[in-house]
C-alpha cells in the first residue's frame, strides 16, 4: 500500500529550498586552495554558483489539500463533502521546517530531506494530522519543462517518496470521514507520502520565485512490510526522445484487480510548458495494454502502434493550464476496468499512447518495464560510519506480483580516477576519484528474494583513512540487477534507476584531549563552504570565535541527526569527528599539535596516491558518465536545452 492506493489525498503548492551551493563543487573542499571568490555568487568553480549564502532550509509554502479519493475510487474536491478539502499543508510548529542536503559533492543526485514535519491544519490553525517525514533522497529525476531551463534555470523534476512516522491525528480529524477512513486503513501509525518537486528556481527571475519550486503531493495508507521510499508499483518508462530529452520518463502505477482499478501517477512526469507547472499539450493521451511485448529503447523516431496491437483502457482526461494538475497531483484513476483489460493487465505491458495524425496509428510515448519486471532498493541512500552495518531491502516484482526465490546481483562500480588539477575547469586542485578502496565496504554480491519478493542486503562500512584527502570519507555506488534480466534500456532517464549511493565516512579516532589542530581542517572547511555562517554568525575558522559561542555550538552539535538544526547540516561528518568537536568545545584548547589527525591524514595521502595510480587507466562506465553529466545539469553548468512547442505531435 502506498500513496497511490486509496483512500488518498492530493495536495499542491510551493516548496522552498534554500540550499547552499558553495559545497556543490568538490574543488571548494580543499582548504589549501580555497579562495574568497568561491563564496561569491556566480557560475563556475571560481565562484559559489547560484546560492552561495543558502542555509539548506526546506519547507512547504502555500500548499493546500486539493482532492480526496475514497475507497470506492471516486475523487472529490468539494469541501462540502469532506472538510479536509482546502485545508492547509505546512511544516512544523514552533521549530525549523526541515533541511535539504546533498549526500556529497560527488553524489548530488539523491538530495535528501531531513527533519521535515508535515502537518495538515484548518484555516484556524487547528491540527488535523501531523507526522515526521522519514529522511529520504529524491529519485526518478526527469525532464519536466518543455521550455527548458528558461526563466527558472532548472528544467528537471524529482520525486521524494517516504513515510510519515509518529502520526498524530488532531481532535478535528474525527470530523473528516476521509481522515477516519485513512486512519483505519493504514498500519503501524505510518502513512505513505509522495512529493513530486519541479519548477525549481535557480534564477533571480522577475517573478520573485528564487529558491521556490512547485510541489505535487499525495498521501495514502502504508502497510507493514512494504517499501517506504518508493511505492510497490508497476513502472512506465518514456521511450520517445526529443533532442535527447525523454518526457514521461518514469511513472508509477498500481493495478488493483479485485477492485478493477488502475491508478497511475503522472505527477512525477507530466510535461509542463513553464516553470510554474502549466500544461500546454495539443495531443490526446490514452492508456492501453499492449498485446505484444515492446522492448524499444528511447528514440526520436516514434514507435507507432495500431488499435489492433492494443487493448484500449481509456483517455487521460487531463486539462491544459494549472487547474487539473494541481488538483489531481497528476494521479489518474481508471475504475470499472473491463474483464478484457483486467485479464490483459495481468501479464502485459501498459502503454501511454498519443494520438497521431496518421489514421489509426498511435505514438507510444511510454511503455511499461520489459516483462513488467521492477527491482528497486528501498534504502537507496546510505550514510555509513566505520563498522556500521545497515540493511537494505530490495523488492522484486513482475507485473506487480512478487518475484520470489530470485537472485539479485550487487556490484560495486569500478573506481573512478582522480582528475588532475589541470584537467579541471578552472584548474584549482586535484579532484579525487570514487569507489576506492574496494575493501571499504563489505556486502554479499548475491542475495535471494523470499516469497514476498524481498531480498535483504547487509552492508558494512569498514575503516578507511581519508582516501579522498580533503573530502571526508568516500563515495561508493552499488549497482543491482536481477539475475538473468537485462537492465531495461528505457529505465532511468537522467540517472540510472538501480543504484545505491553510499557515503562512507572517514575512520577517525577521538583524541584523548583534542586540541584545535585536531578539528581545524573540519572547521576551516565549514567556514569556507557555508559563508552564511561565517558571514552572519561566527567565523568557524577562528577558535576564539567558537569559544565565545560554545554553548550554542555544543547545543547544535549535540542534536539528534533527525533534528533540523543538527550540525553539520550536511550530516556528512564521521560520528567520531563530530564527537571530537563536541569534546573540544567542552574543553577548548587552542595550542598543541593535532597528533592523531596528522597521522591519519598522512596515511590517507598514501592511500590516495596508490589508488590514483591504480585507477588512472580505467574509463568511466556508462552509469558513471551519466552521473557526471547529471551533476553538471543539476548545477546548471551546461544547460543547452531547447524549447519544445510541439511535444508528442506527429
Amino acid at each position, binding site marked *: 500500500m502506498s500513496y497511490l492506493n486509496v483512500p488518498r489525498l492530493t495536495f499542491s503548492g510551493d516548496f*522552498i529550498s534554500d540550499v547552499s551551493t558553495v559545497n556543490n563543487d568538490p574543488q571548494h573542499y580543499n582548504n589549501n586552495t580555497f579562495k574568497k571568490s568561491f563564496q561569491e555568487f556566480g557560475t563556475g568553480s571560481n565562484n559559489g554558483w547560484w546560492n552561495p*549564502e543558502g*542555509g539548506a*532550509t526546506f519547507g512547504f509554502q*502555500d500548499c*493546500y*489539500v*486539493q482532492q480526496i479519493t475514497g475507497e470506492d475510487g471516486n475523487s472529490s*474536491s468539494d469541501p462540502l463533502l469532506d472538510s479536509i*478539502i*482546502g485545508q*492547509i499543508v*505546512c511544516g*512544523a*510548529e*514552533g*521549530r*525549523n521546517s526541515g533541511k535539504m542536503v546533498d549526500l556529497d559533492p560527488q553524489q548530488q543526485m539523491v538530495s535528501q530531506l531531513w527533519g521535515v514535519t508535515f502537518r495538515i*491544519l484548518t*484555516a484556524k*490553525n487547528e491540527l488535523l494530522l501531523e507526522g515526521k517525514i522519514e529522511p529520504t533522497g529524491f529519485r526518478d529525476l526527469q525532464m519536466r519543462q518543455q521550455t527548458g531551463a528558461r526563466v527558472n534555470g532548472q528544467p528537471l523534476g524529482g520525486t521524494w517518496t517516504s513515510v510519515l512516522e509518529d502520526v498524530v491525528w488532531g481532535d478535528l480529524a474525527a470530523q473528516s470521514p476521509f481522515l477516519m477512513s485513512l486512519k483505519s486503513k493504514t498500519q503501524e501509525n505510518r502513512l505513505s507520502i509522495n512529493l513530486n518537486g519541479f519548477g525549481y528556481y535557480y534564477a*533571480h527571475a522577475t*517573478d*520573485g*520565485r*528564487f529558491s*521556490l519550486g512547485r510541489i505535487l503531493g499525495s498521501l495514502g495508507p502504508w502497510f507493514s512490510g512494504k517499501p517506504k521510499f518508493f511505492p510497490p508499483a508497476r513502472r512506465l518508462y518514456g521511450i520517445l526522445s526529443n533532442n535527447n530529452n525523454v518526457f514521461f520518463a518514469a511513472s508509477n502505477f498500481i493495478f488493483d484487480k479485485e477492485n478493477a482499478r488502475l491508478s497511475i501517477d503522472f505527477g512525477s512526469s507530466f510535461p509542463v510548458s513553464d516553470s510554474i507547472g502549466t500544461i500546454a499539450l495539443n495531443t490526446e493521451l490514452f492508456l492501453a495494454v499492449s498485446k505484444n511485448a515492446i522492448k524499444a529503447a528511447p528514440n526520436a523516431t516514434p514507435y507507432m502502434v495500431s488499435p489492433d496491437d492494443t487493448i484500449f483502457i481509456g483517455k487521460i482526461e487531463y486539462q491544459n493550464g*494549472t*487547474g487539473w494538475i*494541481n488538483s489531481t497531483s497528476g494521479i489518474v484513476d481508471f475504475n470499472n476496468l473491463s474483464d478484457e483489460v483486467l485479464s490483459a493487465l495481468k501479464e502485459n505491458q501498459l502503454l501511454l499512447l498519443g494520438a497521431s495524425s496518421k489514421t489509426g496509428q498511435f505514438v507510444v510515448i511510454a511503455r511499461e518495464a520489459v516483462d513488467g519486471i521492477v527491482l528497486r532498493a528501498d534504502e537507496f541512500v546510505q550514510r555509513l560510519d566505520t563498522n556500521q552495518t545497515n540493511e537494505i531491502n530490495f523488492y522484486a516484482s513482475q507485473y506487480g506480483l512478487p518475484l520470489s526465490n530470485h537472485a539479485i546481483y550487487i556490484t560495486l562500480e569500478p573506481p573512478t580516477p582522480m582528475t588532475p588539477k589541470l584537467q579541471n575547469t578552472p584548474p584549482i586542485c586535484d579532484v579525487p576519484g570514487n569507489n576506492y578502496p574496494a575493501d571499504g565496504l563489505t556486502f554479499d554480491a548475491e542475495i535471494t528474494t523470499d516469497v514476498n519478493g524481498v531480498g535483504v542486503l547487509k552492508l558494512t562500512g569498514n575503516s578507511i583513512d581519508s582516501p579522498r584527502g580533503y573530502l571526508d570519507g568516500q563515495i561508493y555506488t552499488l549497482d543491482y540487477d536481477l539475475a538473468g534480466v537485462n537492465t531495461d534500456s528505457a529505465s532511468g532517464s537522467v540517472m540510472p534507476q538501480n543504484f545505491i549511493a553510499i557515503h562512507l565516512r572517514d575512520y577517525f579516532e577521538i583524541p584523548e584531549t583534542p586540541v584545535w589542530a585536531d578539528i581545524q581542517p573540519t572547521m576551516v572547511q565549514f567556514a569556507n563552504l557555508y559563508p*552564511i555562517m561565517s*558571514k*552572519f*554568525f561566527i*567565523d568557524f575558522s577562528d577558535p576564539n570565535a567558537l569559544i565565545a559561542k560554545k*554553548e*550554542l555550538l555544543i*547545543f547544535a552539535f549535540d542534536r539528534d541527526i533527525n533534528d*533540523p*538544526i543538527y550540525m553539520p547540516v550536511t550530516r556528512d561528518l564521521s560520528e567520531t569527528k563530530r564527537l571530537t568537536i563536541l569534546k573540544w568545545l567542552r574543553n577548548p584548547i587552542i595550542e598543541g599539535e593535532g597528533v592523531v589527525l596528522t597521522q591519519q591524514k598522512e596515511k590517507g595521502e598514501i592511500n590516495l596516491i596508490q589508488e590514483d595510480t591504480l585507477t588512472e587507466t580505467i574509463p568511466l562506465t556508462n552509469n558513471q558518465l551519466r552521473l557526471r553529466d547529471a551533476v553538471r545539469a543539476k548545477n546548471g553548468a551546461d544547460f543547452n536545452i531547447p524549447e519544445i512547442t510541439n511535444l508528442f505531435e506527429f
Partner: protein
Amino acid sequence: MLKISPQFVNAIVTAERLEELFPLLQNAIELEHATIPPYLTALFSFKPNTENAIRKVIHSIVIEEMLHMTIAANILNALGGKPDISNPNFVPDYPTHLPMGIGEGLIVGIEKYSPELVKKVFMEIEEPENPLDLKINLQAKALPTYRTIGEFYMALQQKIKEIAPEKLPGDPGRQVTSDFFDPNLLYPILTKDDAISAINIIIEQGEGTTTSPIDEEGEIAHYYRFQELYVGKELIKDPTAPHGYSFSGPEIPFDKNNVQPIFPNTKSNMLSEGSEGRRQVDIFNSTYSNLLNGLHRTFNGEPDYLDNTIGLMFDLRLTSQKLAEMPFPGKEGYTIGPSYEFVKVMTETVIV
C-alpha cells in the same frame, strides 16, 4: 524613564486575588518582548563582521530581555495563569508606544543602529528611577499622571508578597528553565520568595540598584550599558566619581559606514507581492510568528519545547541580515528591514 499609564499600577495595588494579576503579568510579558525586535534590528543592522564591541553590548542586553520575558511568563504560570504568546495582539505594530505606555510617551520603532537611536529610544526605555522618586507611596490616594515600569514591578512584588500563598499554586511542570541561562537567574518559580527575587532580577538588570549602576551580580545595568554606546566609552570604576563609576574607560569605536541603510519600520506591504524582497520579508515574518507559536507551546506546558525554537531564532537572525543587504525597490539608498509582523502560519486563501 519608561512611563506607563497609572491604571496598570493601580490595578495591581487594588487587586485582591491572584487572578487579577494575570492580565498584568501578561502585559509584563508583552512589554519585555516589545523591546526585543527594536534591539535585535539595531544589532543585525551592522555589516557582517563589523562593530563587534557594540554588538556585544546590545547582544548582552537583548539576551536579558529574553530572560525577563521568560521570568514574567514563569511568574504568570506560577500564579496559575496562562501566557498568551501566539496572538496577533501580542506583537506591537511598530512604530508604536510600548505596551502599557501612555499615548504621548515614547515611540519605539524598528530602525538601524545609531547613537541617536540609543540615546532617544533605548536609554529612554531603560532609564532608571530618579532616586528621589523611589520613595513611592503605593497607597497614595491622589493619582499621578504616570507611573514607571519600575514602580509597576515593585507593586507586583509587593502584591505577591501580600496575597500569594508561600507555595505558589501553578503547576511546577510549566516552569521554563534553560541551559543557556545561569540557573541563578532563571529558575523555577515555585514559592512566593522565588517570585519576589525573580522580579528583583528584572528590575536590577534593567535599572541597576538604587545606589549603583551595577546590579547584585556585579553587571552594569542596561541603561548604563546603552549609555556607554552613546558616550563611546566604557563605564569603569572611578573612586572620584559620585557613584564610584564613570565613563572614562577605553573608547568604543563606531563607524556609521558599518551600518546597513535599512528602511525604518519596513512593512511587508511596502514591497510588491511576488517580488523576491517581499518573499524574504514574508519568510521573516512567518519565521517570527512560528517562533511565537513555539514559545507559546513552551510557556504552556511544554517547557522542553524551548530547545526546538532556538533554530528559529537563528533563522530570524540570518534572514534579518540577508534582508539588510537587499536594496529596497523604489526607496533609493535603502535596504529592507525586518518587519516583525505576526502572520498566521498560512493564509486563509481558498483553493482555486
